[in-house]
């Protein structure tokens, strides 16, 4: 069975491929912003692809941080800061763990969410940003974990099997997708799109779509089941 590190690398690979392919769609959605979201994300994940060979010598947490810094160093703009922050915080939270549990992953993504919200100037759900897909994903992951197992307070370690992770990411993906869909009817209150007020309605937030694609990329890898 593949190690978590191997799976993570495949997820990052798939994510990069899908996000690079989504360039035009993201740019188009960002045209009520400043139409640079797609090219930034492409630039960022091309750079990630360029540093993948270094992952061999790193563990899970450091791989995530490496991805985060690479994005923060190459994208620029809001998405560079937010995606960079997200991966860096996720990596920090995973820390030295080589085989994090499902609940470690959920906690890690939650701490990423927290820092993203602070970084964005207290972004909330409803502001029409990537938080609208990321926060429901985090809540869903938490809910799934609570429902499926008694709180294992204090232990935290322990290997996590593929099935649990699959269920977790499936839920996150669905929740992110629904959250992203809800951005369509929102009036932007944060980011550039907020300057146009009413006119931001009717357009999906590009950042929220990035989150959807990320969970989708993870899901595809987990489903491929290796």
């Amino acid at each position: 069975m593949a190690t978590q590190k191997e799976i993570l690398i495949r997820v990052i690979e798939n994510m990069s491929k899908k996000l690079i392919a989504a360039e035009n769609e993201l740019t188009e959605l960002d045209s009520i912003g400043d139409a640079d979201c797609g090219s930034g994300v492409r630039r960022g994940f091309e750079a990630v692809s360029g540093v993948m060979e270094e992952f061999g010598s790193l563990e899970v947490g450091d791989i995530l941080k490496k991805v985060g810094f690479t994005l923060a160093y190459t994208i620029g703009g809001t998405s560079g800061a937010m995606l960079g922050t997200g991966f860096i915080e996720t990596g920090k939270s995973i820390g030295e763990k080589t085989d994090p549990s499902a609940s470690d992953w959920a906690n890690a993504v939650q701490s990423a969410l927290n820092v993203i919200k602070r970084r964005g100037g207290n972004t909330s759900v409803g502001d029409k940003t990537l938080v609208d897909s990321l926060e429901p994903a985090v809540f869903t992951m938490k809910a799934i974990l609570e429902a499926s197992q008694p709180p294992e307070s204090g232990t935290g370690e322990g290997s996590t099997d593929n099935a649990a992770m699959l269920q977790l990411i499936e839920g996150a993906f669905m929740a992110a997708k629904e959250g992203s869909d809800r951005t369509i009817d929102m009036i932007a209150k944060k980011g550039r799109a907020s300057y146009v007020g009413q006119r931001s309605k009717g357009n999906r937030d590009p950042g929220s779509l990035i989150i959807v694609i990320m969970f989708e990329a993870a899901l595809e890898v987990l489903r491929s089941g290796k």
Partner: protein
Amino acid sequence: MKKIINKPDDVVNEMLKGLVLANPEKLSAVYDKRIIYRKDPYLNKVAIISGSGSGHEPDQAFYVGRGMLDAACAGPVFAAPTLDAIVDAAKIVDRGRGVLFLVKNYTGDRANFEMASEMLEFEGGPNVDTVIINDDVAVKDSTYTAGRRGVAGAMFVYKIVGAKSEEEGVNLASLKKLAMEVNDNVRSMGFALKSCTTPAKGSPTFDLGDDEIEMGVGLHGEPGRQRLKHMPANQIIKKITDSVIEDLPFICGDEVAVMINGLGGTPIGELYIAAGIVLDMLKDLKIKVFKTYVNNFCTSLDMEGCSVSLLKLNEEFKRLLESPADIPVRYF
């Protein structure tokens, strides 16, 4: 799209290279991070850095020089500069007295400068602080939005704070206070006749009809708040100037500096038509004009249109505005 460029991805780097080649004694660059910094030796001053997406030239790389900025972080076109560039720029320009970041209020710029500040704090220095500039009255300030944008009024902040640091050697905290004071006293608003075209997209960011104008447009081709039918200059300029005046408000007896800022594609002759209208209005209101600045100061690529900024003055601001700055953008 026809522009004087080679590959869209190389636009910013080639521009910065031209800037350094044209000012070889005064400027240096870290090209792969798009950092431009002063080459002349300076000591014992708090360093000043501004950064934002490129495409607003002369803001901000062309303002690096004695009496203004010590370094500029130029992002890709219209995208905030990256974290590492900000961190490295701060390390390059610091002379031991700390670094002040002057950042126009856009989410991306704020977030990247904030990350850089945290990273520098974590690494143990240099000591940095940030002032967010938000002079654009087109965006209603509110805790529920990203807040007002920073636009051409930022130039007054750079100039005044740059002169203060260069000439009077104050510390980081005082300089920050001064920057906030300038920001508190400056208000701006602009409008567009024509959208800009980014090199990457190659077509206009927003579409304006042949008889439409966009009031309150942002610096990146973000559409503004209101689309109106095109009008004679007298009416357009009066509208935006009224919004600026009412906001602070500027009142009878105030003394101000006026900036008429071209957005990139509008000839300077038209900017002077706008200047005449604004100056007539201020005269009627008995607002005293100390100095009028008319040029392309903070642009949006090839966007056509202009913005009007007013800065309420005190004696310190006046002295610092008038002190010389040696910057690469100039005539003779």
